[in-house]
């Protein structure tokens, strides 16, 4: 199971919320541990117009910190595009072709695809079925 310490910034909290959704998912754990074996363990997600966070894959730990790191794969997108992609209204290919999603850094296409499975697929899964028991917890009081 993945361990994801709680960040204190709003974007970090959103990314933790997404990754937490799959922390018991074996397939997802495999993606993350495979990613961790790579030289490039860090990914910067820069959300315009706000700020960037760095995601470090370190074995079974995923550490999310504010700010950018050099020598990392950097993904830049507007918060609106992020929400559009999560909710299936903007596809990955279209986002890339229209420059709504920009990827920079030393990477291979395989790396991008693996990160897609970790990040964008999870984002879509959370948006499609966001069950964190909120409604269950509140059904008697709402």
């Amino acid at each position, binding site marked *: 199971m993945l361990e994801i310490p709680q960040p204190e910034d709003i974007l970090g909290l959103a990314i933790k919320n997404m990754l937490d959704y799959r922390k018991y998912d074996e397939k997802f754990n495999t993606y993350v541990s495979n990613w961790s074996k790579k030289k490039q363990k860090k990914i910067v997600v820069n959300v315009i117009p706000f700020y960037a966070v760095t995601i470090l894959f370190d074995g079974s730990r995923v550490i999310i910190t504010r700010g950018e790191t050099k020598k990392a794969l950097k993904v830049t997108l507007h918060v609106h595009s992020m929400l559009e992609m999560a909710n299936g209204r903007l596809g990955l290919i279209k986002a890339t072709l229209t420059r709504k999603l920009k990827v920079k850094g030393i990477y291979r296409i395989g790396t991008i695809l693996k990160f897609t499975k970790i990040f964008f697929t999870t984002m879509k899964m959370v948006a499609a079925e966001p069950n964190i028991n909120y*409604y269950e917890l509140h059904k008697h009081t709402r």
Partner: protein
Amino acid sequence: MTISENKNIYKNINRNDVKAELVEIFGAANVSDKQSDLYPYSYDMTEAEPSMPNFIVIPENKEQLVELVKFCNKYIIPIVPYITGNNVGGITVPVKGGIIVDFGKKMNKILHVNENMMYAILEPGVTFGQFKKYLDDNYPHLRYSYPFAPPSAGVVGNALLSGMNNLSEKIGSMGDSINGLEVITIDGDVARIGSCFYGKEEADPDHWYSRYPMPDLIGLFVNWQGMTGLVTKCAVQLWPKDPFEKNMVALFEDLSSVGRFMREVGSLEVLNDISAVSIEVIKMTIELPEPKRFPGEPAMIANCPISGKTQKLVDAKLEILQNKVKELQEEGMPVILEDIDDFAKLLNLRVRSFLDLPAVILSLFEYSGLTWFGSYAPSHIHDELIPKVDAIFHKHGIPPFIYMKNMKSNHYGIFRPIIRYNKYKEGEEEKVHALLNEITDTCIDAGCIPYKTPEWMTEKMRKKINPGWLKLFDKVKKMMDPNGIFNPGRWNT
């Protein structure tokens, strides 16, 4: 917190005789003077000084209360109305002792709903959770308007104190939603006020439809914090429940544009409500109890709910809102508008507790203590107050919690800095009070008018209020309650 001493209310009658009379009126099972029973009524969530009542009584009907008022007025014994204890400002703390009338236990019935003219007649103890469930189960096409409060808070108390709601852009303050009242005045008379005033004994339940055109005596009881009589029934307006909804959220990169955004968007008349909170409040809601704001994060967010009879109507309202936001963005305003559900799903669904009112909102009830400067405000001063009050919070080392609204198509604003704290931690109440005091001075100087006020706050207000108003206020209070038995101490009476 400690148990405070019981006050001496026995100048004109001895304790045993008071108890015997209360037992006679309410029955032994509904009267208590045990310290352990009295203690929960001696304090509220705020830093208000605790004060023990001498008795609590649990009424079942107005006839009992008529007897109580006559008895207490004769022997000059304070009466303090109490509903569910979700109070701020110490407004149900019996500062001069006396008898707590707990309406929440038995006088909590929804007496009538008129579907045609859309109102409900309620006893004082009805809670928001109870009322919402009742309407959802029995009148799913109707809704009430719910405040940023838990389901256990009282509906009538909220209306009588001009509280907020989530239709504020459309209907304004909850005080405006009162159609009629039944009240017991100081000599034990039962007065029905509003269109329900026809009828010698009981009013026709289908005649509680308006507070006009007769002289509007409801004002003698609204915002008086129980100082003028005991309300035993209240008719409140209901609204059609729109089947189509869309909830948008505005994210602000800085604090200075929030006030203008709310005014511009509020006056479009397409929103049900507009309320903004500091980003710290969102973090508190998702389990970061002592949050910080970091560079680059949105500084505040505003909730902009839309509804309509058809999807097309909702889409048209959304288009008006989006066009206005685009116009503001083109002028350089750093604001982003998104669907709140999209936002909440990725961040944390608890954010939806701001929409699904009434709700247990973690940011409000996480700690044992909560205090505030809840105020009505001219909406143009929000621009100046938001950064100023945010800085005061930081100066005192407490995370900013600003909650604000624009009301009734932007006719006025609401500005509410809120402070959560641990009541049981040494020195915490003093620290919190110092912060609240500075916020109070700043906001009153800017023109804010606090509501649900503690006495020390009304004392500050009295220095600014025109003497003519104060004289009239005192005359009305004297006329309504010459012996000062109704919730004494409020507004420094």
